């Protein structure tokens, strides 16, 4: 057992504080905008803290560390690509400023404005399914991290997962975005400190020179050059270049934070400042994974190597602080994701299907019920589903399921006047085909002929999803300009 009394005290004090503050935030929820986007009054520093806290979770630490363990320094390229992706959005306001000016709460709301109600419904369903499937592995990865670092082993995994979920649902459901913003801020501070502590103790035990030598010995050039690494290559890098911009600008839980900002300009700056930290928050857990390789050798389970390393090198007392930081990271991610996907389900699927306008009270009540149901789903899914590939591949491909079509619809919708409803349908459907095909065919890989094996290459599927979505939008729109003239939108907010 790595976890001692002092660690438990720190952990419980922190969890108690989080839940107390989150529930107290209920006092500030006046209406629906208050619940979903914190009344759109969030400023740059607070918005950046909450966006960073949303995007860092134990699951991100886990899959980045896993990549570090199996690819060496080559995976650091993802930090550089992601950094430039955010810089493009932060400098130009690409997509996020356009959406913020239209004052939408969810991305499918934009589909209705630009393409019609049925596109909103289809887009909402794809966004919700892709998003919830994407979230499905979070709880399991978090559970593995906690049980490994604390030294409990896999037997208590289900209990740890259930307790975590109950804590997050309790304050997200009650307090909405105000809770998320306030607790995110506290969690951001704690998790940054936790990352600093963990990195310092890793470096005390395993030095830079040893890590470099082990990586070269284990992988050769593939450990330092992503182009020759068999898991990466050009297809992967191009997919990540497009995907980093698309997923950053269109990931509903993240853009909710931009929509919550007090103006389009603030929303853009939130992305800029968040982007500055991006390379670091990708590379730090990747480095822990590489350090785990140097410490334990290549024979460990890549998923459990990093948590085992932290549980070994971080001493008692600091371990409690670090786990509190990591839990902070996860709780902020869950709360933002639960709120985002429940708002999509309520506003973009159930309301359009019921064909009547819900009152604000009904919308919020439904959203709370759906948050709870999503929580139960990810608990069951996490306990029973076996990942078809690495966690990073799974997250990336389920992300592409909704991001590719959404990117086609929103980017073309905002910047191409000819984008129309037929193009939107084609983009959403074509964008989902390759990722869904991958997830299905991956299960049948034993019976696939060798000529079709490229279809279960995760990099090809991810890349093709964006190409097909763009082609669908362009060809579908151009072919039907006369029968389906495009709708022209005017922003609700000038300047900014």
């Amino acid at each position, binding site marked *: 057992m790595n976890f001692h009394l002092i660690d438990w005290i720190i952990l419980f004090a922190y969890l108690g504080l989080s839940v107390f503050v989150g529930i107290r935030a209920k006092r500030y929820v006046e209406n629906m905008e208050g619940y979903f986007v914190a009344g759109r*009054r969030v400023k740059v520093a607070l918005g950046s803290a909450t966006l960073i806290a949303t995007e860092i979770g134990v699951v991100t630490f886990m899959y980045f560390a896993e990549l570090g363990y199996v690819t060496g320094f080559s995976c650091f390229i993802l930090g550089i690509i992601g950094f430039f992706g955010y810089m493009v959005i932060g400098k130009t306001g690409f997509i996020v400023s356009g959406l913020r000016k239209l004052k939408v709460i969810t991305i499918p709301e934009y589909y209705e404005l630009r393409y019609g109600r049925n596109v909103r419904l289809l887009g909402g369903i794809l966004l919700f399914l892709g998003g919830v499937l994407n979230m499905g592995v979070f709880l399991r990865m978090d559970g593995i991290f906690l049980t490994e670092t604390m030294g409990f082993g896999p037997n208590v995994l289900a209990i740890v997962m259930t307790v975590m979920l109950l804590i997050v649902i309790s304050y997200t459901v009650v307090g909405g975005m105000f809770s998320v913003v306030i607790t995110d801020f506290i969690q951001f501070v704690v998790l940054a400190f936790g990352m600093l502590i963990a990195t310092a103790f890793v470096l005390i035990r395993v030095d830079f020179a040893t890590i470099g030598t082990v990586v070269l010995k284990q992988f050769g050039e593939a450990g330092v050059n992503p182009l020759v690494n068999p898991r990466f290559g050009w297809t992967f890098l191009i997919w990540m270049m497009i995907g980093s911009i698309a997923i950053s600008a269109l990931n509903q839980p993240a853009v909710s934070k931009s929509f919550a900002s007090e103006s389009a300009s603030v929303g853009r700056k939130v992305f800029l400042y968040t982007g500055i930290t991006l390379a670091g928050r990708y590379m730090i857990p990747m480095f822990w994974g590489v350090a785990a390789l140097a410490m334990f050798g290549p024979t460990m389970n890549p998923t459990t190597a990093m948590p085992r390393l932290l549980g070994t090198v971080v001493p008692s007392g600091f371990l409690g602080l670090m786990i509190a930081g990591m839990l902070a990271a996860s709780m902020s991610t869950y709360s933002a994701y639960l709120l985002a996907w429940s708002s999509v389900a309520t506003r973009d699927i159930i309301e359009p299907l019921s064909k009547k306008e819900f009152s604000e009270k009904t919308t919020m009540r439904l959203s709370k019920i759906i948050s709870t149901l999503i929580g139960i789903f990810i608990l069951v899914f996490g306990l029973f589903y076996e990942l078809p590939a690495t966690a990073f591949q799974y997250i990336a491909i389920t992300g592409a399921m909704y991001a590719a079509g959404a990117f086609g619809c929103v980017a073309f919708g905002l910047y191409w006047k000819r984008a129309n409803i037929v193009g939107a349908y084609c983009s959403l459907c074509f964008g989902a085909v390759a990722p869904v095909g991958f997830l299905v065919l991956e299960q049948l890989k034993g019976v696939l002929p060798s000529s079709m094996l490229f279809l279960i290459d995760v990099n090809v599927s991810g890349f093709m999803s964006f190409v097909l979505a763009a082609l669908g939008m362009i060809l579908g729109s151009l072919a039907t300009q006369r029968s389906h003239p495009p709708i022209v939108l005017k922003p609700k907010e000038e300047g900014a």
Partner: protein
Amino acid sequence: MDTTVLIWYVIFIIAMLFFFGTAVVITVIGVRDLKDLLSGSATKQ
């Protein structure tokens, strides 16, 4: 140490400095933003 490894380490250290440096700035200014957000919000009693 191999030159490519050294380059990755330099990039890693710069990335870490950006992360922790920005975290400190955001924390300091974020406290003020949080106070503004809560003071500007009517509370339900």
